[in-house]
């Protein structure tokens, strides 16, 4: 359950950013999450909304943009989508590091992203200065 610590990191970064920008209310946080980043979206959303209560980002929408994995094979120079494991018992597709072309070991060049892409906010108004 590292989604909690990831959500904490998102919150800290966004709050710091929001303060520097003089944001009154954060409306939306856009994330870019790689296919190989090991992040469970539902859990992340739950943690995010739980910990941001009573902050300027408590009503913020969390938008998650998935980022597809790309592998590169040093043996046959293939670069593209990974081979997926059909025999896996997980509910979702399981990407592998097996080269789809030559079946040898490939490296992941994309898919480990876990980034805050952008933040949407409105400025604070002088009359709206609740704690």
């Amino acid at each position, binding site marked *: *359950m*590292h989604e909690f*610590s*990831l959500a904490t*990191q*998102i919150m800290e*970064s966004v709050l710091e*950013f929001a303060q520097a*920008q*003089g*944001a*009154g209310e954060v*409306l*939306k946080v856009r994330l870019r999450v790689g296919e*190989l*980043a*090991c992040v469970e979206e539902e859990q992340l959303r739950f943690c995010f909304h739980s910990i941001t209560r009573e902050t300027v980002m408590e009503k913020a929408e969390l938008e998650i943009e998935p980022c597809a994995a790309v592998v590169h094979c040093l043996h046959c120079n293939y670069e593209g989508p990974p081979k997926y*494991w059909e*025999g*896996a*018992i*997980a509910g979702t597709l*399981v*990407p*592998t*590091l*097996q*080269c789809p072309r030559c*079946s*040898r*070991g490939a490296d*992941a060049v994309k898919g*480990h*992203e*876990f*980034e*805050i*892409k*952008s*933040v*949407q*906010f*409105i*400025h*604070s*108004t*002088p009359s709206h200065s609740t704690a």
Partner: protein
Amino acid sequence: MTTTTTTIPTIQASPEEIYDIELEHSLLEANAKLAKENRAVLDRRGITAIDFMGAIGSGKTTLISRLVEKLKPKIGVAVFNGDASVSTDYDKVAGQDVPVVQIATVNGCHLDANLVGKALKKIDLGKTGLIFIENIGNLICPAEFPLGSKARVVVVSVTEGPYMVKKHPHMFLGAEIVVINKTDLAEAMGVSIEELTRDVHTLNPAIKVIPVSCKTRAGVEEVASALLAI
């Protein structure tokens, strides 16, 4: 309050105006940067660090203990024990007369490069050639948090059942060596080591898989040689 901002040219945003600002801020970057720093410290001194990952009870500590026994006469070994709170693993390895640092994550579910960097300051690096870092017993989280180690070992054991690898595919994508432990119990468990090996290679053909029984010490020598060759 006196105002000092009058001399600074400022563009005042109109209230309620919506801003959308690109941040492009990587949340894993801070850890990745510290991991690189750890690695640089180690490389400069010719020290190899190995990260051990695996479920609770898979035999990480026992394997490390066996490896220490084997490698201590050849090379200066130190051990970092990551644990949420207890020190039983620390006590086990500390009895072997090698430097041991307990890294308590309290409620954290994985070690991070910052904690490992702090642990590096607690040992005499001049007398160290090899560091074993035992990660928290968790098969999902540590995968995305590099520590600065040169190689990652995943310890699975046959007592975790036949679907161990299929259930936790992520952990194997970033590892160099997989130790299948408790092979002495494979028959009793009805678990096929060949099948577990095949699953690992389906995910990542570049991984070296070594069947081991920490109890009988079968395969421990092979792990030790593989680590020295890294």
